């Protein structure tokens, strides 16, 4: 049962296609688990459709349709390959770097993404804390397996954490299994060792 969801603002940016790629990947991971947010997304996408319908049209060049009709029998490009079959669908085609130790019991694996956010997988052992950034920009975390807890409650598989500005308590892994999450942030710097690793690895 999913208990923690992204804000409407985040889903609106996702629906509009303006959420930076790394953040969109985390949101997509949550959406693949969450029927409630898929419903909100479909309302937002219908909003996009309604806005499109009401836009004053801008004509294309006069031969645009004819040129297109000449190309219509070309085959569609193949989909990109699945690189990580062990990960859920929104993450399985993403290029991932190697695992980096970023503190006792915490490892980080950056994912390739473009745009104004960066992200990756974090694997933290029971009792350890997940890294959390400073107070600049949006940050999203989606749990892939096991659980962590912070001042907002307990986050299990599929739950998404979108902390506000007043978050200081780092999330701690609960239970006896390590917790795997996908995280993304617009913040420039992570705190502590993960921040250090991020500066060494680059984005």
């Amino acid at each position: 049962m999913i208990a923690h969801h992204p804000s409407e603002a985040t889903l609106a940016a996702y629906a509009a296609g303006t959420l930076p790629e790394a953040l969109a990947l985390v949101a997509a991971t949550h959406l693949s688990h969450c029927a409630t947010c898929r419903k909100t997304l479909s309302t937002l996408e219908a909003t996009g459709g309604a806005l499109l319908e009401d836009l004053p049209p801008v004509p294309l060049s006069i031969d645009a349709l004819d040129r297109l009709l000449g190309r219509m029998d070309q085959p569609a490009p193949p989909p990109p390959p699945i690189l990580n079959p062990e990960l859920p669908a929104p993450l399985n085609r993403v290029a991932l770097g190697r695992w980096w130790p970023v503190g006792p019991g915490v490892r980080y694996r950056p994912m390739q993404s473009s745009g104004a956010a960066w992200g990756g997988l974090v694997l933290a052992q029971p009792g350890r804390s997940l890294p959390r950034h400073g107070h600049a920009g949006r940050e999203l975390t989606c749990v892939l397996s096991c659980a962590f807890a912070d001042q907002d409650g307990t986050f299990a598989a599929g739950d998404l954490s979108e902390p506000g500005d007043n978050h200081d308590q780092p999330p701690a892994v609960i239970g006896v299994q390590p917790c795997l999450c996908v995280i993304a942030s617009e913040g420039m710097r992570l705190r502590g060792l993960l921040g250090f690793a991020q500066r060494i690895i680059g984005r």
Partner: protein
Amino acid sequence: MTQTTQSAGGPDYAALIQSIAQRRDREAFAALFGHFAPRVKAWMLRGGVNPTAAEELAQETMLSVWRKADLFDPARAGASTWIFTIARNLRIDAMRRERHPSDLMPDPSEEPDPPAQADRVIAMSQQEIRIRSALSLLPPEQAEVIHKAFFEDKVHAEIEKELGIPLGTVKSRLRLAMTRLRAALGDLA
């Protein structure tokens, strides 16, 4: 129910897409192109895409409509909504180039597929009509954040700066707007 799937007076675009899927109907395609390509181009231009690329992306969007027509499910989305999502994904792709990030969008084929019922198909075309009317009735400050989110390639920090209101206010206006849109959909959502 005696409602048809037609939007107010216009052609039934969902039926045109299905006609492409079933018969590779080039006339249906030309009609869709005439209606949607100039709107997709307008949307691209509003998002800051240059005119040459906007024209190209409008054509690519329509090419995808042709190729993917058999994936269109009128019980899942109205025609404008479906074409909007294609245009959006192509714009994301164009901005990222090296990969195909439209794959970020959850693949509908992986979700449990409810059976397509006739009343559901009607519901989806009604959904677009109701959303259009609800959008026109939104208070200006809520309409503004929705428009900025969909038409301008802006992150929230920029919207915040431009409107001179805190991020929390942007978020709460969006939440209020969504509440109204959901209420307008009622049982259709």
